[in-house]
């Protein structure tokens, strides 16, 4: 079985997705995954599929919205963008950001190791 790492990541992954969407504007799943990997200097090699669980959760909460559009290379893709509610949530979490960053840092180190 996958072990418990992904489950610990879950909350922070949601937050990273929100942050990414807030900074980058509308993106599709692949774009979000790539962006997170880039920001983390490719250190965070996530199983890109897990991004979708995060997207579903955020959609259900109304913090992001999704719409079908056309990608850079002319493919049909679902683009996600942050909503007003999502921005508020992100802002509300700002005070926790430092702590989360530490957690992310720890996860990144863990990810590097193993």
């Amino acid at each position, binding site marked *: 079985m996958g072990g418990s790492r992904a*489950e610990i990541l879950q*909350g922070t992954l949601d937050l990273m997705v929100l942050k990414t969407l807030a900074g980058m504007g509308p993106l*599709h799943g692949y774009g979000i995954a790539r962006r997170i990997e880039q920001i983390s200097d490719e250190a965070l090699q996530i199983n890109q599929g*897990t991004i*979708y669980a995060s997207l579903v959760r955020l959609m259900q*909460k109304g913090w992001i919205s999704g719409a079908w559009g056309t990608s850079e290379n002319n*493919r049909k893709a679902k683009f996600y963008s942050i909503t007003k509610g999502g921005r*508020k*949530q992100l802002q509300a979490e700002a*005070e926790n950001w430092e702590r989360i960053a530490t957690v992310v840092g720890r996860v990144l180190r863990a990810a590097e190791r193993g």
Partner: protein
Amino acid sequence: MGADRDSCWPRAARGGARVRAMLAWIRAVASRIRVWLSPGRANSEFAQELEEHLAMLTEENVRRGMGPEEAKRAARMRLGGVTQLAETNRELKGLPVLETFLKDTRYALRMLRKNPGFTAVVVLTLALGIGANTAIFSVVYAVLLKPLPYAQPEQLVTVFQAKPQEGVMGTGWSYANFAELRKQNHVFSEMGGSQFHQLTLTGRGEPAVVNASIVTPEVFSVLEEKPLVGRVFLAEDGKRGAPAVAIVSEGLWREVFGADSNLIGSSINLDKRSFTVVGIMRGNFRFPQVTETKQLWIPLVQDPLFGSWIERRGGHWLRVIARAKPGVSMVQVQAEMDAIGARLGKEFPAENDGWAVRIASLRQMMVGNVKSALLVLLGAVGLVLLIACANIANLLLTRATSRAREIAVRATLGAGRGRIVRQLLSETAVLGLLGGLIGIGLAYWGVHALSSLLPESVPRVNAIGVDNTVLGFAVLLSAVASFAFGLAPAWFAANSNLQASLREGGGRAGESGNRRRARNLLAAGEIALAMVLLVAAGLLLRSFGKLMAVSPGFDAQHIVKADISLPQFQYSKPQQWTAFSDELLRRIQARPGLRDAAVAVPRPIVDGFVNLGFDIVGNPPVSAGSSRTADYVSVSPNYFRVMGIPLMAGRLFDAHDTLSAPRVSLISEAMARHYFPNQDPVGKRLTFGFPPDGAMEREIVGIIGDVRDVALGQEPGPMMYVPYGQAPFWGANMVVKSTLGVSSVAAAIREEVRRIDKDLPVTDIAAMPEIVDASVAQTRFRTFLLALFAGMALLLAATGIFGVISYSVSCRTNEIGIRVALGASSGSILGGVFRETLMLALVGLAIGLPCALAASRLIGHLLFGVSAYDPATLGAVALGLATVAAMAGYVPARRAMRVDPMVALRHE
């Protein structure tokens, strides 16, 4: 399991964030329901999304210089298993709880149908546990928890006087003191007083004895009770000289007055005196007699008995109930009562010095000593359920081991850990539900059985039943129970080592040490719990045996009791009372077979007791704060012969001991021992009695055997007897010793009473042995129930051990086969299994012993003549449990002994 899926944020910020989180949650649920209703679209969209993602990843890989095939493969790896993603997606988007629950339930039902034996054992075990718990809870709920049937019952308190330094923990008031208390306090919105006794209703067909509640008019406003028809008492009804009025209960109105619509305003005769009926109370209004459906109320001032006591400040007979003002705490009430008690003591020292004022909630007063016994029973039946759960958990663990391969395959195919745990839990939930349903059925039956078996002395028996609260309890209990026994197996299943399980094949050959330890621990725990119950039951049984072996001091055999109450308006003078009882005894004794007839008041066990202070003439008066008291009984001369109470010294009473002769008395051995150590009491004089004879000197003419007058379980205290002729009573409480049988004796008494006065009813005819028996009914009942629970516990624990040992033997068939093949004797194989069994039993007993000791301390107050640490009981229980364990282990041990090495070796 990690964090809950929906709590994405480490910690939600406060205030607005909380609202936002709630809105988000509602939106999420709405979205899930939407998707659940039309799953197709969402799934195909997601598939497309994933496809695009894969394509983009592949393109990226190609850009990095991979070949097309390799690029595709790497992209798949990067994205993760598509099937698993789709499954997660479905779970996230739809209503997985509902969806998988339905699926799991169907699957669980199929699994359970395939193993009918297993299912039956689990469901029945659980049903028994739930049923017994629910039944006992219904009693506990009715007696201890259900709101009393009065308005705002939590404000109602009883107020009593107590003299703890003399062991008087709570007693009633005199009317004068009550009136003072009512006037002086500021914490009660209203207070009322009550008493009850029987009055004779005449003028309507056969004379009937009715239960009359004697109340001050305020009682109805204390209880905030409105009449069904007519009115309740007014303050004027309580004044001297007011016209006599009465209120009847709905039950009495229907059954005695034939639902007469003209009853209000008409008059009825009570003890031959006319009362005008002014109201009818609703059927389930009962106060102060809470079990009586047919009763009536009259104002205290009109009562032939207590009415004349109103002016007297001495005495403790009025039961006082009060309603606390809203917002006043019980602490404030008690503080004010302390102050008033002290004030009463100063103002009226003769009657009130040393008396404290105490309060108790109305429920506390009504429930009394039943509470602790009920809680003990609830605890016991809870333990039974716990053992049942341990047993089921064990069965499930065993089964989970043999299903390890199935679960491993599921996990390999992509079932998440949570998913597997959920599936196993839904299996146990289905079991729990089935068990709960049957259990509730059993509970209905159990409640029925319980309420017909419960002694009448248990308060609020009429309120017992299976209502919504009780049903809710049963459902909750089934849920908690199925969670309790389902958790361990599910946890082990989720944490099993995948590779190992797959390698092991059938799951027969072995299991993890953890799991075996868990199973052994459960079995040992069952033994420990069973030990607690068995020790408790053993102690109660021994107590009951001791109680039954106690001699009450009289011989109840062949004694019939009957009561004749004299209307006090007609029979108002003591001379009339004596004349009546003399005449009655003369007539009855003249009949064949009824020579041994006597009157006495109060009779032991039957009538309770009257404790009275006395002085010894010539001795200095007792120091302040202490007093000499003894139980007072007035008897006709042949009472002692009828009851078989032996004379120890001096003489008995005879026909010459009348009001015109010198006053005499007899004392009991205990009294002689206690108050006349190393002296001969015969010839000494005592001063005691009821007004107007209160300060009368009475010569002690003899010593009589001790009698347990209060209860079988209570050591006989000092008692003093006076001749009925010198201390008569407004009625004849008879005891007749006869071999003729209760009904012939009753007929004879009725006939003779009718010849003297045709309006006098004879009531409460009963055989004395039955009354003595009924006096221990509660004790017998709780002993019986606890023994029943202990028996269930023993059976369950035995099954548990049997299960564990059989499973352990079947797991080791292989090993045993090899040992047999290598020449091990069948004795050594048997010994090995026995050792394992005994080890389990010993561990269980070691855990159980301290628990049992603690439990017996808890039930110490229910014991009689047996120490809570009775070594005989403890030893017998330990030995018995070890024996049962050995027997439970014997069957599998025999099987191990007969293992055929060839079969065993092929077993793999």
